[in-house]
């Protein structure tokens, strides 16, 4: 192949990539960055400055919503890891060949069902006239129906449910690559279970752990449906604030400032996670 033809095909292949990344990812981000630093002072008259951000920081409601979202997202990520790890370990190391495939497939099933249907399922289960409450009444365990929706516990249960598969899948694929001889060597050298877990399993599974945590955290912090549907109108989730600014109040300037803040914040957490564990985005998240 001649050099020119090679160059031409490079350009032809590069163009869609550049258009996509440029027009649909980078330019829109610059766009909200730009809108977030302007303030409407009249019809088609704008002033530029950081007022939207200052409002965001000085208004405790907004600030607290972001902090709350952050804290709950970290909690959900940690729970997903703690709950999901034994499951991933079971699928990857303990289950026999055949049940392994079946279990893995079962893990993937909820992934095919939309968030909306899953949240809806939880509503059917947990609401005052829902399955759990009515069953408990019938069995005489409680006297009258109780409302299990619209509290933080429920939101956390629902969020863990929504994201845990994104934790389990990368964990299973990393753990499957692990040679059992490593574990035996660990035990033979006199390591206790905890030592083997801490010094062999965890370091080996690190890429999977990091990938799972990043995806889980991102999905949780950016989720909209689950907190709103299970937490009700007062769920105080940050994406809800963005929605309110954009759609309900039509205040795009401050909505953009919220959006940028969320993006900066999640990017920072992802970056810090990668730095702390010495992983990179291309080797973890992209390795599905």
């Amino acid at each position, binding site marked *: 192949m001649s050099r020119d033809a090679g160059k031409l*095909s*490079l350009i032809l*292949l*590069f163009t*869609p*990539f550049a258009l*996509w*990344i440029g027009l*649909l*990812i980078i330019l*829109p*981000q610059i*766009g*909200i960055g730009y*809108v977030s630093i302007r303030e409407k002072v009249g019809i088609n008259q704008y002033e530029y400055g950081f007022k939207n951000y200052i409002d965001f920081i000085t208004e405790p409601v907004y600030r607290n919503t972001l902090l709350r979202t952050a804290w709950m997202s970290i909690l959900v990520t940690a729970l997903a890891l703690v709950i999901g790890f*034994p499951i991933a370990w*079971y699928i990857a*190391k303990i289950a026999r060949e055949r049940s392994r495939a079946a279990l893995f497939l*079962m893990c*993937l*099933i*909820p992934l*095919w*069902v*939309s*968030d*909306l*249907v*899953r949240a*809806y*399922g939880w509503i*059917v*289960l947990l609401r005052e*006239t*829902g*399955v759990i409450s*009515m*069953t408990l009444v019938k069995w005489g365990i409680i006297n009258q129906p109780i409302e299990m929706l619209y509290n933080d516990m429920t939101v956390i249960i629902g969020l863990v*449910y929504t994201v845990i598969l994104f934790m389990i899948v990368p964990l299973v694929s990393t753990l499957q690559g692990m040679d059992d001889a490593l574990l035996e060597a660990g035990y033979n050298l006199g390591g206790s279970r905890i030592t083997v877990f801490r010094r062999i399993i965890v370091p080996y599974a690190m890429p999977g752990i990091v990938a799972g945590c990043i*995806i889980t955290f*991102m999905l949780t*912090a*950016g989720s*909209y*449906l689950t907190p709103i*549907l299970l937490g009700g109108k007062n769920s105080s989730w940050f*994406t809800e604030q963005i*929605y309110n600014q*954009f*759609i309900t109040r039509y205040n795009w300037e401050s*909505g953009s400032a919220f*959006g940028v803040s*969320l993006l900066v914040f*999640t*990017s920072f957490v992802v970056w810090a996670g990668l730095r702390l564990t010495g992983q*990179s*985005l*291309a080797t973890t*998240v*992209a390795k599905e």
Partner: protein
Amino acid sequence: MQGSRGLMWIYRSYVVVFFLYLVAPLVAAGVFAFNDSMFPSLPWNGFTWDWFFSPNEPKLGLFHDDRLLQGMGNSLYIGVIVAALSVAAGTCNAFLFVRKDFRFKNALYVLMVVPLVIPGVILGISILVLASTIAGLADQWFGVFLTSLRPGIPLVVMGQFSFLVTITSLVIIARLEKFDISLEEAALNLGASRARTLATVTLPFLFPAMFSAFVVAFLVSFENFNTTLFLVGSDSPLTITMYDRMVKAGSTPVLNATSVVLMLGSGLLALLSVFAQRPKKQA
């Protein structure tokens, strides 16, 4: 693990409980589609197909509920377009990153992955803002009114496309990397043209991955909510229609019926894509 039987037993029951947790809401959403009652809750009033097929109010079945059907139609239409576009772009990206060498390749590869770690809400608002800005400028400077840049199906397509390309690219790249380049060289040596080699050797090898990328993209598009929420106009896709009904109108089991159809539909598609990805076993 050579632990005691008791521990193993506890471990097994934990796994069982976990899988119950996994299926419980899906079963709940499914079962009440067949309950002969106005509410998706206990008591069980007997089995009925009404929530699928009943033609009249108040138990209007899914297949007679025009708004839900309309939403489903919109979702299908959007899903097919977005999936086709994303597979096309993903295939280009795969050839770009697997076959070509260029400056900043690694940095650009990371950039390709980045859309996966931008929250969907942010993709939604940023595309909304950019499209409106462009539409506003076109109106102001040239007096052109660009309807396609106002919230509506074209914007929904752009929004979903923006992050689906990453997913399709990753799926197709994984397959292209396994391709044995000597097969292409053999074809070229035997006198095939480049285009013909691509059409008869490379693309057939890539096809299973392209197919499953299409299915995945379609499913993700069909169930996407976060990005779509900000970009819908009057023709809303199914998830938005269902959400509106859940929040505003109060839900009847017709939503359960819709959920059943969604579960069956996406389950079948997902199975199809799993089988397409399997290496063919000669019987």
